[in-house]
């Protein structure tokens, strides 16, 4: 019965409602699929299959007894391993937290639990969410289901690969500079980075607090809107979360997009963007014109400045946030030390991987006395510059359309030795985090290697409804999932 794992969550919900499927059947189908494919994909850091089976049986029992349950009760999910889960390891794919068991649940995890959604396990990522390929994981390398020799993107690579490979029906990721959208693009699934402040960050292990957001990675746009419905909302435990009226993000999906104004910033299609990526996006533009949208070329020269500012701001915040890992209260502690300083230094030096150390050092440098004004302060001003540019663009356009990444998924090992080259994979996504606006990544087609090409739709703050609507109409038109499937090619 492996066609169960091919269904979207909204299809599973219908089948649960009509008693065509039970939660146990759905959960069992996913466990079988994991047993079959996980050895090829390596998406999970921790599996919680036994617990999932028990919960599924419990929910079926509740349904049978006609107890009130959420429509999502009994639907499985996968969770990125930087979201705290009570009683289950949260490793951030780091040696530093290899044995860390969170004493509490992240707010988004609590929300999933409240709906009766069942976790199948924790998903692999770049260590502390720092990376664009999931190769920085200290635990394992995750493989892209479309071609197992290629990376799934990152840092939420485990989440995107698991959804693409049907190992989970949907997943949670986190996005600081593109970490949901780039892997979603590389794996041919749908990923949304919500407006900063729409979703609580409580229990998300902090990387760069002013940029981090939790968001959904799903098979299609409707599932994405449904998962956003569940996780969005104010949380008193995260004072940067906004107290705004709760919306139903599925409500406007089908709305006609005739007359909607889409801006295409030419700077996002310039040097360094692969021709095949451009070609697929030009086709997408034609599709939108056919649907009656008004598509115009525009100028939004923010990408390269944002990337430069991003690496200053994100690393500065990371150097501060990761100061807490000192080997005292939790996390890795070195075996050899005599003084307290040695305990700190040895634990951190042995517990963190290369990329994490590189960013902590850069962050400490730009914040250190004498350099603060030249780097950090300047980057914060550039942030204002970028926000203003987006504000101007959204005066003219409802939505902006760009690539997600300059290229499709690259080969494992291809960019490992050159950090700067790896950072450039984020050139199209970081400005969105810098400005705090929402953006969705969805598949627009495939390249000549059969690898998915992602399209990014950017909206104004708290206008998730609009980008989901514009994404949904496109998805209905090109029917990507019906026409393309991951091959698990070795």
């Amino acid at each position, binding site marked *: 019965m492996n066609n169960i794992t091919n269904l979207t969550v909204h299809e599973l919900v219908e089948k649960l409602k009509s008693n065509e499927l039970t939660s146990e059947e759905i959960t069992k189908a996913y466990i079988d699929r994991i047993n079959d494919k996980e050895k090829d994909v390596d998406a999970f850091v921790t599996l919680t299959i036994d617990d999932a089976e028990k919960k599924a049986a419990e929910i079926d029992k509740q349904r049978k007894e006609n107890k009130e349950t959420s429509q999502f009760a009994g639907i499985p999910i996968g969770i990125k391993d930087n979201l705290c889960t009570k009683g289950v390891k949260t490793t951030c794919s780091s040696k530093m937290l290899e044995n860390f068991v969170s004493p509490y649940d992240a707010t988004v995890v609590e929300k999933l639990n409240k709906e009766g959604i069942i976790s199948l396990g924790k998903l692999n990522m770049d260590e502390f969410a720092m990376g664009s390929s999931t190769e920085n994981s200290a635990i394992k390398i995750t493989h892209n289901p479309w071609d197992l020799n290629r990376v799934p993107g990152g840092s939420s690579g485990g989440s995107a690969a698991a959804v693409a490979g049907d190992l989970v029906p949907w997943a949670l990721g986190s996005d600081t500079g593109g970490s949901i959208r780039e892997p979603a693009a590389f794996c041919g699934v749908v990923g949304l980075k919500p407006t900063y402040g729409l979703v609580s960050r409580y229990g998300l292990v902090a990387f760069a607090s002013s940029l981090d957001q939790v968001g959904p990675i799903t098979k299609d746009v409707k599932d994405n809107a449904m998962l956003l419905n569940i996780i969005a909302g104010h949380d008193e435990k995260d004072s940067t979360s906004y107290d705004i009226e709760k919306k139903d993000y599925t409500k406007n999906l089908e709305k006609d997009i005739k007359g909607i104004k889409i801006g295409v910033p030419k700077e996002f299609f310039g040097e360094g963007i692969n021709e095949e990526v451009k070609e697929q996006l030009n086709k997408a533009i034609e599709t939108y014109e056919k649907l009656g949208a008004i598509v115009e070329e525009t100028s939004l020269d923010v990408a390269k400045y944002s990337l430069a500012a991003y690496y200053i701001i994100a690393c500065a915040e990371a150097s501060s946030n990761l100061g807490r890992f000192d080997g005292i209260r939790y996390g890795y502690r070195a075996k050899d030390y005599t003084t307290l300083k040695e*305990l700190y230094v040895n634990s951190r030096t042995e517990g963190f991987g290369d990329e994490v150390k590189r960013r902590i050092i850069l962050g400490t440098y730009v914040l250190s006395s004498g350099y603060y004004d030249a780097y950090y302060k300047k980057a914060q001003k550039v942030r204002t510059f970028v926000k203003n540019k987006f504000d101007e663009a959204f005066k003219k356009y409802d939505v902006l359309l760009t690539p997600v990444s300059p290229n499709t998924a690259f080969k494992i090992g291809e960019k490992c030795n050159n950090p700067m080259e790896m950072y450039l994979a984020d050139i199209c996504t970081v400005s969105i985090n810098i400005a705090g606006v929402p953006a969705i990544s969805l598949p627009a087609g495939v390249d000549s290697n059969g690898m998915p090409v992602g399209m990014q739709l950017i909206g104004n703050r708290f206008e998730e409804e609009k980008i989901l609507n514009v994404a949904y109409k496109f998805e209905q038109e090109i029917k990507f999932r019906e026409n393309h499937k991951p091959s698990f090619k070795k």
Partner: protein
Amino acid sequence: MTVSKEELLHIANLADLKIKDEEIDKYLNNLQDILNYTELLNSVDLKDLDETIGANDSCNVFRKDEIINFDNKEGIMANAPEKERNMFKVPKVLD
């Protein structure tokens, strides 16, 4: 700006990290590459622009100063690398 070896080691010490002799060149090159890239920020006209501290423009958020009990203290202590009774154990700080 060019980063010297001495500066790199000073920064690493501030961050409680140790860089091995054979890693110094690699870290220096990586750091220099990124700092060179950030030079392009000098071409942005930042005159009259304020700094953006966070992505949203919320001001202070206050809450009542009250004690809320956390019910899983065992869960917290279970992660301690070394403990004695209900306390985290560290090397001697004072002689």
